[in-house]
């Protein structure tokens, strides 16, 4: 019962031809989004994001380390994802497989390239000490669209984070003492939206079953209409007009999603 059967797949496609989905949504309609921040006390920032039955937990930890040689005055970012076997019968223990790695990397680029974090302000001493921001993403329940959930979770956890106290003399972080200082973030929030192509239709926020029969997907990270990261996934090609349709749809969805999450991010 793990895979979506052909028969179910055909029925989903047939429905979509009529603009309908199993759960009654429109093709371009997101499920309800729920965000809870500050869910883990030992993290510098954390968030639980639910999109329908899909749930992810994202935590931000910070550490002081050496900067990279090519950016001696900038802090570092590291994004890791884990698709926990707890969250789906499909995920197994063991070294991370491609979907896990891709998830972390797509979210990483979405945040990094949008310049959401002001890394220069995370420099403690040029060439020697800078803050590293770790964003760790865990799936709790996979009912499709983990990518978008993870992106929203990363933003919410970053906004929730407080920098811990750093003792410059002792060169030690005092995690118990959280300062009031937040991670320096840009005003515009980058949102990653994934559009899926199923038959001749474009849909957003697929359930697990819908994601199974997706032929191609494009994830676009943008803030305020400016695109800063993009990834096309899967082996099916897209026609030029399809691609433009995706870009247009994405712009609309970004606004919709922003409206849904805005109230949680204050």
């Amino acid at each position, binding site marked *: 019962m793990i895979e979506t059967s052909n028969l179910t797949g055909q029925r989903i496609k047939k429905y979509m031809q009529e603009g309908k989905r199993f759960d009654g949504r429109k093709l371009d309609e997101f499920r309800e989004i729920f965000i809870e921040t500050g869910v*883990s006390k030992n993290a*510098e920032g954390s968030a639980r994001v639910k999109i329908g039955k899909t749930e992810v937990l994202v935590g931000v930890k910070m550490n002081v380390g050496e900067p990279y040689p090519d950016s001696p005055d900038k802090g570092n970012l590291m994004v890791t994802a884990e698709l926990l076997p707890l969250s789906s019968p499909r995920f197994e223990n063991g070294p991370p497989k491609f979907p896990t790695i891709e998830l972390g990397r797509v979210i990483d680029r979405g945040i990094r390239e949008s310049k959401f974090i002001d890394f220069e302000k995370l420099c403690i001493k040029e060439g020697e000490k800078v803050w590293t921001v770790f964003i760790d993403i865990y799936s709790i329940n996979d009912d499709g669209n983990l990518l978008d959930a993870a992106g929203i979770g990363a933003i919410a956890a970053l906004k929730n984070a407080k920098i811990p106290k750093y003792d410059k003399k002792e060169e030690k972080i005092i995690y118990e003492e959280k300062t009031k200082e937040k991670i320096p973030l840009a005003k515009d929030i980058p949102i990653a939206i994934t559009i899926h192509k199923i038959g001749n239709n474009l849909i957003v926020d697929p359930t697990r079953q819908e994601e199974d029969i997706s032929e191609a997907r494009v994830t676009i990270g943008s803030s305020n209409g400016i695109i800063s990261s993009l990834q096309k996934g899967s082996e099916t090609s897209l026609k030029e007009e399809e691609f433009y349709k995706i870009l247009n749809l994405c712009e609309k969805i970004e606004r919709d999603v922003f409206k849904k999450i805005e109230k949680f991010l204050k």
Partner: protein
Amino acid sequence: MTTKTFKRPDGRKVDEIRPMSAKVGVIPNADGSAIFSFGETIAIAAVYGPKKMHPQHSQNPEKGTLRCTYNMLSFSVQDRIRPGPSRRSTEISKITEWALEPIVILEKYPNMVVDVHINILQANASTRCAGINAAAMALAHAGIPMRDMVSSISIGKLDKQLIVDVNKDEEDWEEGEGATDIPISLTSSGDITHFQLDGKIKKEELKKALELAKKATKEIYEVQKKALKELPGVEND
């Protein structure tokens, strides 16, 4: 042992468990799931199976296999843990299997495996105990045939004083004889399924520790039972 005036760092009585909470059915994908917490220590567990065991050479034709994995989220503690398995998590996974196996009726499932995935969302000591409590509930929620329930508690000895449900400050106790940590898991009929000890303790004190564990696990058992009965769609009797 007569230090009646002993003060715990968080002001609890010596035999007082931190506020517990428990809930089942928290992961829709899983066949059974539960969340259990001792104060700030939160464990979540999911059960998948019984299902066919892969690889085939791991199959046991006499009875099913219980397979537990314990994992701490990287941000569940102050110093970030590198994601992935460690020596510590591998041992605790096995300990958890041993703690639960006596109560699970696996004879019905030859060549099959029941997977139990435990994740620590937030840690303030006693994580393996919270994990075992959540896992036992998740197994029951999954409808796996069971002989009994398992409840787990950590008993501590701070200097000379025995205490129930050790937190992080107590785990790091350094005064006097220091801290001894004794995680114990018991079935509701009192059988010992898991017993560990780190520190120094006399035989008489250890007997007392077990008595404390018996009393504490009774309380935990009630919390577990209540959560399982509160499951939506289940008729309360």
